[in-house]
């Protein structure tokens, strides 16, 4: 698997696009999706709600387990992916594209977000 170079990553396995007009898109990585197995339910933060970097903002349920979704940055949620709510398998089939989770107007981001190469190294262990 390859992690897109243009994205940045959290150690909790979320990815983040560079902000456009202050808004970044968030999803989980292919590594995380593979580890979860078939995702069957996603619980996303409400549009308009505030998320905080490093804190839980939703849940992902797979066949075997439920996992917390962490926000990689702080800000206000501007949009959630209704397609992935309707069809959670998008998280598995297109984690970096159609399986994106939510968009956030970034107010603050932690200094320790990873580049693609750093994330590769983080997950290689």
């Amino acid at each position, binding site marked *: 698997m390859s992690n897109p170079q243009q994205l940045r990553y959290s150690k909790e396995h979320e990815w983040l696009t560079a902000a456009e007009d202050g808004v970044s898109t968030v999803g989980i990585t292919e590594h995380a999706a*593979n580890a979860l*197995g*078939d995702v*069957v*339910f996603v*619980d996303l933060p409400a549009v308009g709600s505030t998320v905080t970097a490093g804190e839980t903002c939703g849940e992902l*349920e797979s*066949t*075997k*387990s*439920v996992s917390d979704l962490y926000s990689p940055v702080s800000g206000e949620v501007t949009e959630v992916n209704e397609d992935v709510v309707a069809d959670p*398998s998008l998280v*598995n089939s297109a984690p970096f594209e159609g399986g994106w989770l939510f968009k956030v107007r970034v107010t603050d981001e932690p200094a320790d977000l990873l580049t693609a190469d750093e994330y590769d190294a983080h997950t290689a262990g």
Partner: protein
Amino acid sequence: MSSTEPRRTALDALHRSLGATMTDFAGWDMPLRYGSERDEHNAVRNRAGLFDLSHMGEITVTGPQAAALLDHALVGNMSGVKEGRARYTMICRADGGILDDLIVYRLGGTEFMVVANASNAQTVLDALTERAAGFDAEVRDDRDAYALLAVQGPESPAILASLTDADLDGLKYYAGLPGTVAGVPALIARTGYTGEDGFELFVKPEHAVELWQALTKAGEEKGLVPCGLSCRDTLRLEAGMPLYGNELSTELTPFDAGLGRVVKFDKESDFVGRAALAEAAERAAAQPPRVLVGLVAEGRRVPRSGYAVVAGGEVIGRVTSGAPSPTLGKPIAMAYVDAAHAAPGTEGVAVDIRGSHEPYEVVALPFYKRQK
């Protein structure tokens, strides 16, 4: 090998070459899934799936008093099992608590193979060995003598038939016969844990790879896929089959688990647990314990083992197994609930999913029954 080192089956390298996600299961490193566990599940329901179950624990009991020993050690009537047939049964403690659920194959007049869950194999071996005292019978640890491959699903008879001359049409559910599959000597059993027609093939470990490859090739056109333990769990859950550690434990008697039918009080000999089980049977009749029921979600959040079942603000039961059901397209669970709430269609039952009370429908088990 240290005790913390996971055990690997004879098919380990093959699983890795297939890209399996491995998981620790009862000290064994086993395939959890190869790709999508939902696709694997659906393949078994609609076509066929191939499993490595070599972690299961085989124990051979032989000798003139082999049947008598098993009648004494287990709750079932083993001397009543015909040669070539198998029986689902349990081994209990003297206090009636379930040590394990088992399948026992009668291979001959004086030879039986007991198949225990991997997690309990040592316990079962120890108990049988201890209970064999005074019987003219030998209990042999054959865990390393067998690899176990299972072919499950509606296409499995056709796939297996292309590799063996054995009389599969004459092989009934819960029967087993020695034969040759793809040139490999095998005990061919028509058993499984998926709710589908299928076979379990006990072979020498050195033949496992050869047999796996032959089955893969024979099943190619029939849509057979390799399947991991993840889909095995959802398949057995849909079929309403209990899993030791979830629905069964030493804290429960077979009567508490709704499986009192496996206890045969009418057999000739005394057996370990008899007195306690007779009391448990009376107790269950007089004052029904919690009942094992099925729950089907109205929403999409998945109940997990240990979650509370609630009604009217009270905890009325506990989830033992839960998963998204690929066949129903909804989350399902098995749960022990108070008898007052156990009737199918009981209103107002919910599962406490991390603080949120999600409505669930009470249904009779199983969730899924194959069309014969």
